[in-house]
């Protein structure tokens, strides 16, 4: 299309790889979600709250997995929000083969599905197991570790909204320090969640040396799809941990679910990285470094960290704890914003 005879190739897109799609990009460079023919593993009519990050992430991840596997996919789901809001008799919003067994056994059930496919000559069909943070980091950790240790051919996806949301916002081991939940209320001299040592399931997964581990959020679809696709290139155990804001549990406006996820990564509090066989191989740099407070302020579950009354010293120290965690992540995962100022991931240019 070069009118003046210049041979320079077009390098830049108005929105590049940040938006879901773009009419100026080749269809292959748009996301799976941009296509009107996308598989919609999860379709309309489900009972998720308005602005539910998990509903969105599930469709994002599974549609990407479906494309990577040519639609040959079986999903196993743990008990939790995703399972409950998608399959209340008589309505199911799934359009793929889907199995829900119990709260803590999704990884084991998925291992069984994978074994069955192998022994019946249907290895072209791949398996995804999915659960919330409750079903993954707490009650499901035993089965998850077993699956990892056996290196069963399953991609496990954890949708982390940082509490047991389906049962009414109770604290899980994924709940951040200081957050208000129904079992860690913002009351008394030490309001909000305790400041424990934390539990990073991605790092636990890495400790098993499984082929692929990654973190992602609903704010960066290109990144999420690339990671799901990459995961499906491997056989053996793979783990993806996706941060999914929950308007109800986090006390945020439904409309800002994606903005929150974006702030979580831009502050460093939720680092985006990939690991293969126990070693971090890639991390996604922060584009515009943001203070953790900007992220927390949009969520009522952290309101007590900013209020004038109450134990102000304790509250402020909670803010420091979170900011320190973010800074540590930036250092550990080399999210290094200063060194990487250009956020353009350039389409077809190479």
């Amino acid at each position: 299309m070069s009118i003046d005879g210049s041979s320079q190739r077009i390098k830049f897109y108005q929105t590049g790889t940040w938006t879901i799609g773009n009419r100026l990009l080749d269809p292959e460079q748009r996301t799976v979600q941009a296509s009107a023919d996308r598989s919609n593993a999860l379709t309309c009519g489900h009972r998720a709250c308005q602005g539910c990050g998990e509903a969105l992430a599930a469709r994002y991840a599974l549609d990407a997995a479906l494309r990577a596997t040519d639609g040959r996919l079986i999903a196993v789901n743990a008990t939790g929000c995703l399972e409950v809001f998608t399959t209340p008799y008589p309505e199911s919003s799934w359009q793929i083969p889907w199995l829900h067994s119990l709260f803590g056994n999704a990884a084991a059930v998925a291992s069984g599905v994978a074994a069955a496919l192998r022994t019946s000559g249907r290895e072209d069909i791949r398996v995804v197991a999915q659960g919330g943070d409750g079903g993954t980091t707490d009650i499901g950790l035993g089965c998850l570790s077993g699956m990892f240790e056996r290196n069963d051919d399953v991609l496990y996806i954890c949708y982390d909204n940082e509490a047991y949301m389906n049962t009414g916002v109770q604290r899980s081991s994924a709940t951040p320090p200081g957050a208000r939940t129904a079992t860690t209320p913002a009351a008394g001299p030490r309001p909000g969640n305790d400041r424990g040592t934390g539990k990073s399931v991605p790092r636990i997964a890495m400790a098993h040396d499984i082929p692929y581990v990654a973190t992602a959020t609903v704010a960066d679809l290109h990144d999420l799809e690339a990671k799901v696709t990459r995961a499906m290139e491997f056989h053996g155990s793979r783990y993806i941990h996706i941060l999914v804001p929950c308007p109800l549990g986090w006390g945020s406006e439904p409309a800002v679910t994606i903005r929150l996820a974006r702030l979580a990564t831009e502050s460093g509090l939720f680092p985006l990285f990939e690991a293969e066989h126990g070693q971090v191989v890639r991390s996604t740099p922060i584009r515009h470094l943001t203070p953790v407070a900007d992220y927390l302020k949009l969520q009522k579950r952290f309101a007590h960290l900013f209020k004038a009354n109450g134990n102000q010293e304790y509250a402020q120290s909670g803010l420091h704890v979170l900011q320190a965690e973010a800074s540590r992540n930036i250092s550990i995962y080399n999210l290094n914003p200063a060194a990487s100022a250009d956020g353009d991931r350039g389409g077809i240019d190479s």
Partner: protein
Amino acid sequence: MTREFASTLEPATSLLNETGSWRTERPVFVDRLPPCNHACPAGENCQAWLYRAEEGDYHGAWEQIMVDNPLPAVMGRACYHPCETECNRAQVDEAVGIHAIERFLGDLAIRQGWNISLDRTESGRRVLVVGSGPSGLSAAYHLRRLGHSVTVMEAGPVAGGMMRFGIPKYRLPREVLDAEVRRLTALGIEIQTDAKVNDVVETMGEGGYDACFVAIGAHLAKRVDIPAPDAGKILDALGLLRQIETGSGGRNGEAPEGLHVGRRIVVYGGGNTAIDAARSARRLGSEAVIVYRRTRDRAPAHDFEIQEALEEGVQIHWLSTIKSMDEGQLTIEKMRLNTEGWPEPTGELETIPGDALILALGQDVDTSILGRIPDVTLRKDGIVEVDRNMMTGHPGIFAGGDMVPAERTITVAVGHGKKAAHCIDAYLNGTQHRPSPKHELADFSLLNTWYYNDADRTVQPVLGEIRRRTTFEEVVGGLDESTALFEARRCLSCGNCFECDNCFGVCPDNAIIKLGPGRRFEVNYDFCKGCGMCAEECPCGAIEMVPEAI
């Protein structure tokens, strides 16, 4: 073995559950007014033609410009781009270089020989346009598109008005201007030069014109009295520029032969004309000094032009007025700003060398043409009063451009021409011109700029210093195609969906329907829960959340 009752379900049975009933507000796709469009005095739909350009549809983009403005190659050079001042991108990094892209498209059109076709068949009506400056030519063009027969009568020897006689070649090469004028005549517009109109009413009657648009500009220089030994040493800026224009030779950017103004010239004034005069004098080999009574930030000239002048070696004495002129020197008085910001004399005098004084103190309208018509109202400075339909007090006689109350820029003039043409068209048809209602402004706060790539504004090539001082070659160069495309793609498309698929992608309820390329999107209100994520994540603010009537 059969499937279990109730605990096993068929796929997509949830489509029975129409969650749209949950909503308290609904998303609505809207078109909002981009600030560039809003700011353009010619009413160009900048966003729309940038949309075309970024697709590589340069012809389509150019045609879109031509809907409003017949002189894109000129405008891309001479317009002061208020669109860019208002451009929302400036709040991200830098404004989109809209003028540079318009110029690229205009130049491309000239190279490719593009033209437009008329919107309507011949109406049989005849309209007279007096003056072939930007306003007159714009009016003529729009009237012609609407199917009317148009004659432009130009008093001077060649068409163009201030474009030819006010803007120097190094800002607007004459080949470009000529090409765009030729395009107009190719459409069937008749342009008569050396055809001064003295009596509008009479001329209309003689020619059987059904209406008239007068746009003779303001080409009379204001003067002040400055004591000087030799009156010939005092020129007005317009006169100088005219001489440069009509002087012999002067092809290919060279200075006209035999034109000397003096070794050192002093220009009095702080507007664009003053700058033009000073820079032109430099190219003629003179040293040039500008004297202006206020400060740089209060000077009417655009700052980039002041900057270019300084780069070319023009000196400027701010806060100074000229008291008198002697042989080879001028006496200037230093000013200071009082508490209200107005300059007042300090009493301090200074002498500066100078052989000639060029006055650039403003321009007045020649009132002779309309002054005799009784129902035409003139202000005391000669400006013609017109109603909101650009019509003077005399029915059928319309006016626009520098001669009516307005900011005096080429783009405003072009805008007047377009508006007047539509009003004349309505007048001829016995109807009222009703401009379409404007959408809500696409304010920056409505955008989600995260989604736009970081991309610094491209820079146009600039002629080297030496050539700037010695020739009238165009100082600022144009963009090549890939750069123009890059620049066009920096546009945020404020308030207008550009099919980025965000809404379609981010809806957790799969409640946006993609209608196909060029057809945008639709909300599936059966399932939309009204969460507002689509509106929040729309980069260009083309979705509004509207409360449901509960």
